[in-house]
């Protein structure tokens, strides 16, 4: 595949890693904010190849992992209703709510469907005018334009049976929260390439300024990731504090203006709970009131559902990069992908699942 194969070229990747080795003079702690990058790093074993000075900590960038428990419970309640076709991205089916998950709802007769695109959910709404079609609109900035387009399209088509359950989170407030923590160890950030494809990277200079930490827009293939790490290390070693772009083929400073406009038309910023982390002010997006008729939380009257997370696993600390999955006493023992204690194990993009699946585990 063009734009994939050439970025997995082992010789090129090794050349860049060698350059990192030559550049680095002292230990640095970097965070890849994006779960997709965590997945690629562990899948290709990139962290094993880096010089020991470089420590990668995995960030909270998995929208499946951070979707709040309460919202999952709302999803389960809506999906259980006989008149509803509940559509979701695949990974969300595995996330446990307080008592059950979407698999159990499906097993009890709920019409739960995995879709590839939110437009597929809109098509289902057209095909089933007698049913309420609800789409579980989770995601970071990357997924926001597709999710809002489904609302705009439903509006254009005059659909009265389509709504979305929104759990949208944004990267900059999360970075702000992580760097504001007194426990913070992160000295440089790999910014999420596809979030930046949509949003550009104009939001980051103020954060770089405030925290005096370099940030580098980074892609997803092994070569992209080592290039992002190299660029970050070069900035750190040179004492430069700035935003750089190591994913130039896909990302511009301004981002995708039509997509940003669509987001602003349908969504507004709001406070958002992150599962395992807690409330981060203004870290999410919600539907604007003028789109209330597409708001599943209003349509199905689930606003009263409340859920408290129970204390067991260390997913919160892992999501914040304070701990690694194998630090967890439950990891690989009580907590496995098919029997997850925590959200980071639930998503195949979560740090624990990536570790469990790909890393050498000391039994």
């Amino acid at each position, binding site marked *: *595949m063009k734009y994939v194969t050439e970025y*997995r070229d*082992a010789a090129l990747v*090794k050349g860049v890693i060698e350059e990192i080795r030559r550049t680095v003079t002292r230990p640095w702690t970097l965070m890849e904010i994006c779960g*997709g990058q965590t997945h690629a790093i562990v*899948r*290709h*074993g*990139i962290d*094993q*190849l880096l010089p020991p000075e470089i420590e990668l900590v995995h960030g909270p960038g998995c929208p*499946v992992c951070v979707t709040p*428990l309460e919202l999952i419970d709302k999803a389960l309640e809506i999906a259980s209703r006989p008149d509803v076709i509940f559509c979701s*991205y*695949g*990974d969300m089916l595995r996330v*446990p*709510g307080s008592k*059950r998950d979407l*698999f*159990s709802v*499906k*097993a*009890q007769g709920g019409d739960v469907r*995995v*879709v*590839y695109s939110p437009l597929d959910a809109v098509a289902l709404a057209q095909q089933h005018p007698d049913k309420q079609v609800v789409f579980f609109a*989770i995601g970071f900035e990357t*997924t926001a334009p597709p999710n809002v387009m489904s609302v705009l399209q439903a509006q254009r088509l005059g659909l009265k049976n389509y709504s979305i359950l929104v759990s949208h989170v944004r990267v900059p407030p999360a970075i702000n*929260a992580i760097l*504001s*923590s007194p426990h913070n160890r992160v000295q440089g950030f790999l910014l999420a390439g596809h979030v930046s494809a949509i949003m550009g990277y104009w939001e980051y200079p103020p954060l770089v300024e405030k925290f005096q930490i370099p940030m580098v827009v980074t892609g997803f293939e092994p070569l992209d990731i080592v290039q992002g790490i190299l660029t970050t290390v070069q900035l750190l070693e040179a004492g430069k504090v700035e935003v750089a772009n190591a994913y130039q083929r896909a990302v511009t400073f301004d981002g995708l203006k039509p997509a940003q406009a669509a987001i602003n038309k349908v969504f507004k910023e709001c406070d958002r*709970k992150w*599962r*395992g*982390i*807690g*409330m*981060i002010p203004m870290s999410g997006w919600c539907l604007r009131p003028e789109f209330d008729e597409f708001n599943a939380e209003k349509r199905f009257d689930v606003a009263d559902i409340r*859920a408290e*997370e129970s*204390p*067991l*696993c*260390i*997913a919160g600390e892992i999501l*914040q990069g*304070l701990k690694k999955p194998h630090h967890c006493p439950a990891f690989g023992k009580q*907590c496995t*992908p*098919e*029997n*997850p*204690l925590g959200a980071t194990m639930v998503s*195949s*993009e979560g740090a624990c699942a990536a570790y*469990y*699946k*790909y*890393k050498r585990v000391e039994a």
Partner: protein
Amino acid sequence: MTDETINIEGAVCAPPLPHNEQIVMGHGAGGRMSHQLIQKAFVPAFQNPALQQGDDAALVVPDGLRQKLSISTDSHVVWPLFFPGGDIGKLAVCGTVNDVAMLGAKPLYLTAGFILEEGLQMDTLKRVIESMRQAAEEAGVQIVAGDTKVVQKGKADGLYITTAGVGLVREGVNVSGANAKLGDVVILSGSIGDHGIAVLGARGELGFESSLQSDVAPLNHLIAAMLDASPNVHVLRDPTRGGLATTLNEIAGQSGVGIVLDEETIPVHPEVNAACEMLGFDPLYVANEGKLVAFVAREDAEKVLSAMKRTRYGEGAVVIGEVAVEPKGRVLLKTALGSTRVVDMLAGEMLPRIC
């Protein structure tokens, strides 16, 4: 933990759902959930030495018989009934023929049970039966008994087929998932993931098109050629649901050995790779219906490989790895970049990774 700045509520997660109370789709995905179901529900009730062996077929030696029998059964609920490269009938014959043959047996007789849904078109049934006839002919087996039931509209997806088969194990041959040994190499008969992606594409639910064909095929003649070539074939298994990764984990567990794979040697059709990239799948977990893995003593590997390559379904055979002492019961993969990672069994249902 506490943190004033980001107002941590506590490092918390909801308790998990092991799905012990009711069956969910993941129990049928061929991965760890399927294994746990078998171990918890079936094995304790039926326990006997043949079952506990844990292979895809059972090896039995009835009193007074000189030769060992290999017996297996397989149910088929594939949807759609017809897909590029095959259909439920061909699958039902090949699935059982292959399971029986994987103990080093020559499959002889099959039975077939049909569950038909009210309203099924007679033409559809006839096409499926004709396909079964052809597959049985190619495999050289006879379908000697059968059963038919009809259920009400909506209680089955057109038609389900359960086949059972029996074969005679070759004399002097001892093939089992428990026989992998240090010094064995791992041979794979061809590219992985074709069946899973072809069927997923044919379903149309995820909206992609491809020209991929399922690899569904009877592998008994391939196996006969391998056993002719060497007495040192220790393990044979077809990596169906759960894919190559799950099958190799089963073998590592049964044999109590480690398995080390070389990522770059594992053949994957470019279209399978592309579909997996698109959906966030790993080809190592995608189903096959016409491939096998073999563990063969290193000194005989070349002989077996060239015998395989002379057969129709073994043309793409390659060595993909070897048995190691450690880590026992686990599968490791050397990546193209030269690092090593654990390849685990499929957990539950394979779902598209969107985010």
